[in-house]
């Protein structure tokens, strides 16, 4: 079973999630929180992938989740599709958009790319808010068909299943020549080019993959909470998953997942919903000040010889 021996992250995740699930199953409220954490973990994983491997600090992952959520909501609510059929669409649309954006800006410096993702995020929000006929505008969409309704434990298992698939896919990527190439790009882009790597194309593919993961998170959200508004997923989520990644570390595959668990639990201790931004923003600043070499210090494991 060398296949699985090389993919320990997936195994660790499944074991941890099973344990957590056994604990959370005792209380309906805990199960709700657990499911929310798994959804956040999926989106945080996607931020870890784009930043940790592709070197792209993305402020758009929440928006990709929103696109996935709205896609499935519209398909199931307005066109009567089965949620399972809508899942591929919820994954593909963000992936296509992510690929397009990355191809446009992959050559630019990190700040420019991050800014492009932020701009995309703002654009998506405007579209969601104003395309009333499609997205319900400010009001949003209610009554989205639920999946495995009445069986939150089963939904938890489904969510964990999707998260595990995402982690497995991430591991597969890093074990392949493309993962090696991404690692090279991060350390020395010119060396990667000299290895024959078409850098913008590979970065865009990785970014698309991450967007797909976020879209899956959005699908889960839509079919569990059954209600979507422009503010449900989006900029706020993008910021919090960024913090999850920073807290858990983009160095490892499961780092952002750990960050999602930590922050998910901590968020229960916050006094009010409004203060979340204060907490996230402040924590981000503190971590950047404390982490050696700032943002890159959380990722950098390369050096010049």
């Amino acid at each position, binding site marked *: 079973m060398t296949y699985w021996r090389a993919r320990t992250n997936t195994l660790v995740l499944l074991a941890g999630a099973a344990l957590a699930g056994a604990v959370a199953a005792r209380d309906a409220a805990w199960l709700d929180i657990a499911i929310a954490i798994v959804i956040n973990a999926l989106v945080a994983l996607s931020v870890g992938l784009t930043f940790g491997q592709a070197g792209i600090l993305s402020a758009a992952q929440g928006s990709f989740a929103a696109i996935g959520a709205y896609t499935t909501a519209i398909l199931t609510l307005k066109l009567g599709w089965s949620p399972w059929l809508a899942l591929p669409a919820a994954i593909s649309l963000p992936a296509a958009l992510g690929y397009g954006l990355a191809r446009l*800006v992959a050559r630019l410096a*990190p700040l420019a790319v991050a800014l492009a993702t932020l*701009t995309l995020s703002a654009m998506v929000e405007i579209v969601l808010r104003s395309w009333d006929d499609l997205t319900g505008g400010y009001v949003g969409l209610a009554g989205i068909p639920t999946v495995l309704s009445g069986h939150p434990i089963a939904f938890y298992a489904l969510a964990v299943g999707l998260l595990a698939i995402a982690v497995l896919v991430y591991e597969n990527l890093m074990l392949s020549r493309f993962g090696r190439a991404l690692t090279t790009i991060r350390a020395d*882009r*010119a060396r990667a080019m000299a290895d024959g790597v078409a850098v913008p194309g590979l970065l865009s593919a990785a970014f698309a993959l991450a967007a797909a993961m976020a879209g899956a998170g959005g699908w889960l959200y839509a079919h569990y909470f059954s209600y979507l508004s422009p503010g449900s997923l989006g*900029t706020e989520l993008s910021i919090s998953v960024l913090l999850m990644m920073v807290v858990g570390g983009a160095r490892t595959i499961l780092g952002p997942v750990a960050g999602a668990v930590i922050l998910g639990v901590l968020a229960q201790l916050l006094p009010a919903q409004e203060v979340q931004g*204060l907490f996230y*923003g402040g924590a981000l600043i503190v971590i950047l000040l404390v982490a050696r070499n*700032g943002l890159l210090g959380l990722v950098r494991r390369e050096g010049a010889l």
Partner: protein
Amino acid sequence: MAYLAELAVRGVLLGAIYGLLALPMSLTFVTVGSIDFALGAYAVLAAAVGSTIGGVAGVAAGLGAALAAAAAMAAIFAGLKRVGVDEPITISLASFGLAVAIGSLILWVWGTRAFVLHSFDDVWVLLGIRVGPQSLINFAVSLLLLAVIHFLLYRTGLGRMMRAAAINPAGAELSGIPVTTLQTGTFVSGGLLGGIAGVLILFSAGLDFTAGLSLTLSGFGAAILFGAHGPLRAFLGGILMGVVEALSAGLASGAVSAMVPLVVIMVVLAAGTVGGVRFSGDRP
């Protein structure tokens, strides 16, 4: 036709605010290489405080609050530099964190209400075009500040040092120019100019706690539209963007006009012309 002219004029006056925001944005961008994402938050904070206290005292308090917030950003910047971090993306990310924190603070203290105060009730008609006196004041103030900044940058010793620090930070440092202090100063200028913009908007269309990010992006879009070289270009970028926004708001919809700064940023970024070497990702 008269309608178009009116929209255009409205756009110019609106664009003056963008130009005002673009000034410190371009200063920081050129001198530090980073974006101060909290710029819009300074404006909203100034408006919030100003609307609570009201009157001239409110304006002063609002500016004070904005300056305090910017001072916090300056301290964060200095702190980052102290620990050896000077990558633009980290500094920008920190400013983003501050922006989010300030936005949350405003929401917590003031709630979701709009901050708006009335100044003038009458509308003037100049050459057949209706303009509000407040927007003329906005324009005049912005123009004045542009002139001041321009004078400062190109006619004073301080400006010479700033330009030297922007072109060659290492060399400037060696020549005895206090580069870090100057860079910190650009953040503080954001507080001042952002605060003024916030107060001006307070007396115009008003804003709420969500406006921070869009103001920041508008300021940045204006700053890079004609190339992030200097205050005059940044200001003109603001004017042009304001005109396009006003036209699209009048002829299309509010959603389309809200997209204008975003499209500008995306297009300019994709063209790869911003910031020259700083934004070039590859090296031989």
